[in-house]
């Protein structure tokens, strides 16, 4: 276990965005937090990333071990991708050679001299993933890492993300496209209405869903629908 979340609760006025959410993150895995829009994924990630205060619960992690990469941001729009990567490398102290490896893995070479503010949504997403991975934190929480990517790009990025778990890093991805999640994740946490509806590997979730539905469940999509 690299991170343990216990009873995490977040309230926005009368709305309970997260209700006693608990799960573990294991070393070296790709964990997918799956849920429809508005299920509380971003709130959960922001609480874990320290961006939002939460009302109750506990997050146990090694200090400085996690990094939260938000969705929908375009940091330093006037700066080039190349400079932003050098900045993050220096600011967070990335190991030598990691920047070049990420540029190659995420096909960023043609974008290096472009300003971040001029990138398309998909290009910006790839640059942001490189930024997140460059922080060299042990666990990366990435919010919607495949949003804005086409099928080919999604596959490339999924492959790149997987390759970065081989050296012991852990990825937690918030995903609303179930097909994308099935392609890249080792385990899944199903979140709906701010509560956890199931957690485990694909066979474990299928077994759980089949048991609840008293019927045969074929894949992650059906398991998700059955459990949420």
């Amino acid at each position, binding site marked *: 276990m690299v991170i343990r979340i216990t009873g995490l609760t977040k309230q926005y006025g009368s709305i309970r965005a997260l209700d006693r959410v608990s799960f573990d993150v294991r070393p070296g895995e790709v964990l997918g937090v799956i849920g429809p829009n508005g299920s509380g994924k971003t709130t959960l990630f922001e609480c874990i990333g320290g961006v939002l205060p939460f009302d109750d619960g506990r997050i146990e992690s090694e200090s400085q071990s996690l990094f939260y990469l938000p969705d929908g941001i375009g940091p330093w729009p006037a700066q080039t991708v190349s*400079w932003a990567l050098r900045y993050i490398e220096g600011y967070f102290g990335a190991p030598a050679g990691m920047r070049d490896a990420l540029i190659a893995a995420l096909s960023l070479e043609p974008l290096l001299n472009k300003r971040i503010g001029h990138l398309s949504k998909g290009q910006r997403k790839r640059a942001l993933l490189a930024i997140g991975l460059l922080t060299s934190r042990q666990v990366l929480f990435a919010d919607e890492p495949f949003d804005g990517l086409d099928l080919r790009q999604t596959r490339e990025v999924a492959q790149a993300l997987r390759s970065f778990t081989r050296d012991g890093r852990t990825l937690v991805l918030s995903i609303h496209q179930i097909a994308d999640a099935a392609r890249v994740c080792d385990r899944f946490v199903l979140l709906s209405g701010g509560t956890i509806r199931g957690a485990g590997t694909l066979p474990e979730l299928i077994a759980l869903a089949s048991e609840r539905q008293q019927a045969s469940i074929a894949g992650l999509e059906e398991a998700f629908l059955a459990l949420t």
Partner: protein
Amino acid sequence: MPSRSAAIVWLFAKEWRELLASRAWWVMLVVMGPLVGMSFISAVTAYGELSGANGTAEGVGQAFSPLTGIWAPTFSACELAAAFLLPFVAIRLVSGDRQSGAMKIEMQHSLSSFTRISVKATMLMLGWLIATAAPLLGVALWASYGGHIDAPELLSVFAGHVLNGGLTIALAATAAALTEHPATAAIVTLTVTVGTWLINFAAAVNGGWWERAAAFTPTAMVAEFQRGLVRADIIIAAAVLIFLGLALAAVWLRIGSSVAQRARTSVALVAMAAVAIAGAVRVRASWDVSEGRYNSFSRADEVAMRTIHGELKVRAHFAPEDPRRSDLEYRGMRKLRRAVPHADIEYVSKTSTGLFEQTNDQYGEISYELDGRKVVSRITTAEGVRDAVFAVANLQLGPNSSEDDEFRGHPLAATPRGAGAIFYGIWPVITAALAVFIQWRSA
């Protein structure tokens, strides 16, 4: 994780690039030229006309001081820029990170929020200092005309505008941190600026506590430096306000804390600042760096006045809007406060204009009391105040008491040659070309 210092160096590099990418800063830089040019050219023209073709006329030496004749008007462009241009540069730099989401990335580093905002403020101050190159160019031009430069006077005016820039940056940073949108931050900043003008207006009408508060508004602070008076209380109060602004900005930019937590910290910070400023107000140390000793009695008079140990009580019966009151204040009382720091000086009036108090016999009187003795005078000049103080304190007026260090002035019958071309042409063209070149190179 890199060393803390390496991360700070990278932050400085980033903020510098962000400043260079800021169109607001370039616009301010371009506009500074014509703004300074207008005031410099009219100041030199007026100075030259008053100096005549062949030097000064006797008795008007004060009119020929570069401090009031050249530096104050030339640098006044900085006051305009600090009120209407610099806030937008600061807000852009602070709000930009929040708007773009960069803050969520950078704040995940162990560096404190205060360190981050301090780096930003330092870079903004550098940007402000670069903008003040325009009036410094005016200084160089003045020197090239053969004009006199007194370094302490010039430094005093410059320091006033640096402090004012610091206050503006701190205020804009607070506004940008407290509000979600840069436009709201701009409105808040301008509202505070207009609010300080209202305090000045209320001080002129009502006197009393308004007057004391008005002494610490940016306009009044700059004015003191422009008169060549460096006051410790003003410097301390400004430093406290700058620190408070940056600390509040750091609190409200910090991620992961609740609004209640931030509000509690803010209240504690404001309370601490209020205590510090209340303490600063009691500090009486000040330095008159003006060559013409505009803020002091003559050295001999001051030496004599320092022997007054009892409580000197001065009651001046003038309404706030009575022009004699400002005469008395600027010619006499501010000098008396410096010479006799423990003097208890108070203005007394029942109305703001004094128009209907003229029938009261006491109106217009200035009473001086010391150790049971009392002297009443109606003279509002420096000499009148000095004579009354000497009389009530039983001091002997020495020969040439006020003439021992009389300032003779530095007349210069010069025309602002080349200033128009530099400020209206070369400066805007070079800064605009630099802006385009730097934006193009970074793309």
